[in-house]
């Protein structure tokens, strides 16, 4: 993680309100940024429906085998 510091001047009587609005704005901005990065990466993927089915089945069978080995099912 890196820290970005933005400095600005606001009237002192608006300080608390400004901080609240800025916090909400930053939260929303970060969410939009994360989503757009995720979409951009996913759009480059060559994964197929067949791959999804094969790998999710493989993962689930391994999880099931783990439960069997632990004697939980």
């Amino acid at each position, binding site marked *: 993680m890196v820290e970005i510091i933005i400095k600005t001047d606001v009237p002192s009587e608006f300080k608390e309100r400004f901080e609240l609005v800025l916090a909400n704005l930053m939260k929303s901005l970060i969410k939009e940024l*994360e989503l757009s990065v995720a*979409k951009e*990466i996913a759009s*480059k993927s060559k994964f197929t429906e067949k791959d*999804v089915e094969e790998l999710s089945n493989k993962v689930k069978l391994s999880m*099931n085998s*783990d439960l069997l080995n632990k004697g939980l099912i």
Partner: protein
Amino acid sequence: MEVVLDANVLFKTLISSGEILEIIFNDKLQLLAPLKLKQEFLNNKQEILSKSKLSEEDFNLLSSLIFSKIKFIPLDKYKGSLSKAKQLLKEHTKDEDFIALCLSKEIPLWTYESGLFKTGFAISTKQLSEKLAKELS
């Protein structure tokens, strides 16, 4: 709203044109999944990289963004529901972790596995999307 995320939904993020990612990033939704799913997903990293043709850097970033939206639950927290899940599932013997977590939290499973809809615990992407839209309105 809380739902358990099935493995097939997690893998579908790798072919998502946006709909699944939009839901995953929706603030109104809390996603839960067995901790083992995260471990298994990462155990298959090389196969995912080979099939998706994504760079390792892209894969690491995408998985970390998606994982940050999921609360991973250790087996100890839901193992008490495993036997009931097994009874419910009958022939779907590979889904015990997911259904046991649903049972322990009394929440649905977001899945693409058609057979799981018979258990009464499954919710489709379309149904989930509609529920979230109603919560917003």
